[in-house]
Structures are given as structure tokens and as C-alpha cells.
């Protein structure tokens, strides 16, 4: 870099560029928030779904599973598990853990009540109805 391009010019471009692009990001965020109700299935945020989200969080499900592709990659994607397996299978599966099969990955037993299981399933149903631009590519997640 030659002498015509000085440090103070570089500094000014840094501050100007950062402010400009951060404001652009805020504008896009504003627009996203306006557009979300059409996509985010928030009309179905029932008390059960909200309670289910809390169960999802306090059992640290994200520590093994992904949800809409985010989380750990140790266990199956659950954003579409409601569609893949259905409510009864999900509840029976959670209750049957751990399988104890030697050498296989194990899921802990969380001792959830029937109400908690229903809430969790309600949350997974709600998550499966978010418009994710057709992700995942197929039912296997």
C-alpha cells in the first residue's frame, strides 16, 4: 500500500463501512420482522407449545439433536420429526429410553409426565409447520 493511502483514510473507511452495513443489517432485520408472521407459524404459539419449548430447552435436547439444522449432530433432526414419526411414536420413544443396546448411542430417560410429553409434541408439531423454504431436502432430515 503506497503513501497516498494513509492510515486515517483506512480508519475512516472502517468506521463508515461498519456503520453503513450495520444499519443495512438493522433495516433487513426490521423487514424480516414484518414478514415473519406469514412464515413463522406464530399463530399456533399456544400455551402448550410454549411449555413444550421450555421442556425442549431444560432437557438440553439441542446437545445431541438438531432443530431446523442447528444444534449437535449426534442424533436425528427433530424439526420435522412430527411429520416423520407422528405424535404417538415420539412419546413412546422418549418413554422407552435408554434402549441399552450395547455400543449404540444412548438417549437419557427424562421421566416426563404425560402433560409434559404432550407439550413437547405440541412444540415439535409447531416447529414442523414453520416455513423453512423446503428444508430439509427429504423426510430423513
Amino acid at each position, binding site marked *: 500500500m503506497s503513501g497516498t493511502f494513509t492510515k486515517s483514510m483506512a480508519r475512516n473507511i472502517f468506521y463508515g*463501512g461498519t456503520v453503513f452495513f450495520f444499519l443495512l443489517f438493522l433495516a433487513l432485520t426490521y423487514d424480516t420482522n414484518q414478514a415473519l408472521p406469514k412464515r413463522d407459524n406464530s399463530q399456533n404459539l399456544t400455551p402448550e407449545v410454549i411449555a413444550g419449548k421450555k421442556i425442549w430447552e431444560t432437557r438440553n435436547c439441542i446437545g445431541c439433536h438438531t432443530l431446523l439444522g442447528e444444534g449437535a449432530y449426534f442424533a436425528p433432526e427433530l424439526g420435522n420429526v412430527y411429520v416423520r414419526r407422528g405424535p404417538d411414536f415420539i412419546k413412546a420413544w422418549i418413554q422407552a429410553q435408554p434402549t441399552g443396546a450395547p455400543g449404540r448411542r444412548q438417549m437419557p430417560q427424562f421421566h416426563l409426565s404425560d402433560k409434559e410429553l404432550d407439550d413437547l409434541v405440541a412444540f415439535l408439531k409447531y416447529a414442523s409447520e414453520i416455513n423453512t423454504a423446503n428444508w430439509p431436502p427429504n423426510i430423513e432430515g
Partner: protein
Amino acid sequence: MQYKSQAVAKPYFVAAIGLFVGQIVFGLIMGLQYVVGDFLFPALPFNVARMVHTNLLIVWLLFGFMGAAYYMVPEESETELYSPKLAIGLFWIFLVAGALTILGYLFVPYATLAEMTGNDILATMGREFLEQPLLTKIGIVIVALGFLFNISMTMLKGRKTAISMVLLLGLWGLAIFFLFSFYNPHNLVKDKYYWWWVVHLWVEGVWELILGALLAFVLIKVTGVDREVIEKWLYVIITLTLVTGIIGTGHHYYWIGAPEYWQWWGSVFSALEPIPFFAMTVFAFNMVNRRRREHPNKAAVLWALGTGVMAFLGAGVWGFLHTLAPVNYYTHGSQITAAHGHMAFYGAYVMVVLTLISYAMPILRGRAANSPRAQVLEMWSFWLMTIAMVFITLFLTAAGILQVWLQRISTAPLSFMATQDQISLFYWLREISGVIFLIGLVIYLISFFVKGESRVGAQ
């Protein structure tokens, strides 16, 4: 050491390295659980091990950043630290809070931990990387504010250089964006949208300012190149970083329910994100080639050059690999993501903290550089850990490509677990590479205890 208050950096570096060891041990446990699924179950389920692995990483890097700031800012500002006592006090608070949190993860069921620590008052737990109990999160904010106060006051009373300004900006950004960890809306899409304001705006935003400042500081010291030149480079690099990285957040918004225009914004801007990393590599090599002195600490120079190369490969190249929306549609949430995450964190943040430690630690211990024998050992650890990480990344990439093919592309898609069985060979190879990494880390630790004639005269 030019200012005696710089000495507060030492416990921070020691703690950082100690927690780093813990992180790697838990990483190896998880790597084994990938292939021997019931290993240590139910005593240590995978989710707990992962929480410990990732949280230790974040905490030790924060220790490293704070230690680096305490070391650098007095020297940059040409004045003693505002309050060394505050720095030491905050060190113990952070260490004890961190240790209690990890013990809580290990010995208390997570749901119970949540109840005990006020998650019912404000639910913030159970989200990836932000698993910390509310009390810990509040503790982090208090420590960060005390730390920023100390560093800012030091700078205000002394010389204000571009390096310390950029460092401070990065550290303030780190604290401010962490506040979004307290926002956890019921709406899952919004939850995810703003979760990235912590995670992405940290690692592909403000942390890169810290990275740039640390690297620039060490390069000035070890090469003797004119500060004007280095600081101009620094500004150019961080301009490129934020111009591409802020809107680049969009590459996380493709499939979580956000509007689909993010596929364009995210793809275009994040495709440019390798440029600042490339600039950083060119910068590091350029400055070392133009050096005006032969610094006795060869190991620190090696770490600095390594940071440039590995950050470019891990964050730049492996990031680009899966950042375009049509590619990411297939690779999202696969082992490709894991491959990128490992090399990017190692190449950018682990290595820059180790660069700073490599440069500063001998001086903190009263010598300009370690003995040649200790340096040779440190350089061995550099190569072992770095090459091991390259192989971890390559094996996870191979696993990821197969996973995507078998589970998402082939005409007869396999289930998740059936796919995992098919690719277990690569998980075994990754685990072997992990063991090599651990050997490198042990050699790194030993290098601190190797005697031999040291060069006289600390600076």
C-alpha cells in the same frame, strides 16, 4: 516487561491453558461416543460432554482475550493498568463461577440446574453454546463490565493507538452482543434469529477485531515493522471483515423460517468473507518478510504465521465450502458444519491466543524468549496440533460428504442413524487424529517446564 501491572495477565493465561486441556479431554470422550455410543453412559451423556466441551472453549478463549488485553493495553497505552487489583479479583470470580458452572453441568441434571438457578424467572438456558445458567450469564456480564471498565480507564489515561482502539471496540462488541443471550422469545424463529446475534456477530464479527488486534500487536513486536504500516493493514482487514461479516449473518437465515431473500444476501456477502482472512495471511507473511529484527522468540513468529494460514483455511475456505444457499440446502446441520467449526475455531481463535501467550509468557516469566530447547518443543506441539486439526477437519469433511449423499441426495435415502453407521470409519479416524492433537497439547504443556539456557534481558 515494560509495566509491572502487565503481570496480571499471567494467571489468565495459565487458566486458559488449563481449561484448554479440559476442553480437549471432553472432545476425545465425545469423539469416542460417536463410535462407541454407550461409552460412559449414563454417567456422562453426550449432551453434557458437548456442553462442557464447547463452554470450556468459550471460557478459555475469553480468559485468553482478557489476559491478552491486560498484557497489551498497558504497553500500548504506555501506562500502568488502571486497577491491577480489580483484574485479579475478576479473575477469581470468573474462574470460580466457570468452575461451578461446569461442575453443575456434570453433577446436576440439567433440568434441576435450571430450576435451582432461576431459569423460571427468565428462561435463557438450553440453547446451543448459551447453556449457562442465568446466574452464570449475569456473572459473565458483571465480569465483562468490570474488565471493560479497567481496560477503558487505562486507555483513557494513556496513549491511544489504533491497535488498542480496535481491541477495545472488539471487546465492547463482545459484551454488548452477549446481551442478546438474555432474549429468548417463545417464537422459535425469532429465538434463532437473535441467537445468531450472539454467535455469528461474535465469531464472524467482533471477535475478528480482537483477533486482528492481537495479531497486529505481536507482529509489531516480533518484526519491528513500522507501526503505521501494520495499523493501516489492520484497518483494511477489519473493514473487510465487518463489511462482509455483518450481512453475512444471513447465511444462517436460509432455513429457519426467515424470508427467502436472505439466501441472496447471505450467499453474496458470506462468499466474500474469505477475503479478510486471505488479507490476514498475506499481512502476516508480508510483515515477517519485511522484518527489521530477528526476534529470539521463533515460536511466537510460527504461531503468528500459523494463525494467518489456518484461519484462512478453517474460517475462509471451509466456510465458503458450504455457505452458498444451494449448497447449504444439502449440507446444513451435517458433519460439514462440524468440520468447519473445528478448523475455524482452532485456526482463528485458539491459535491467536496461543500466539499471544507464546510471545508474552516468556516475558512475564522474566526473559525475552524461552531457551531454544523449549522453543523446539513448542514448535513440535504447534505442528502436531495443527496437522492433527487438519486431519480432524478432513475426516469430518469426508464423513459429511458421505452423510449428505446417503441421507439427503441418494434416490433411496437412509435414516440418520443408518447413515451414521455407514460413516463410522471416518469417526474412528477423526478420533485417532484427536489423540495426536492431545499428544501435541501435552508436549505444549511440557515446553513450559523445559529449562536450558535462556536468553537474558526481558524487555
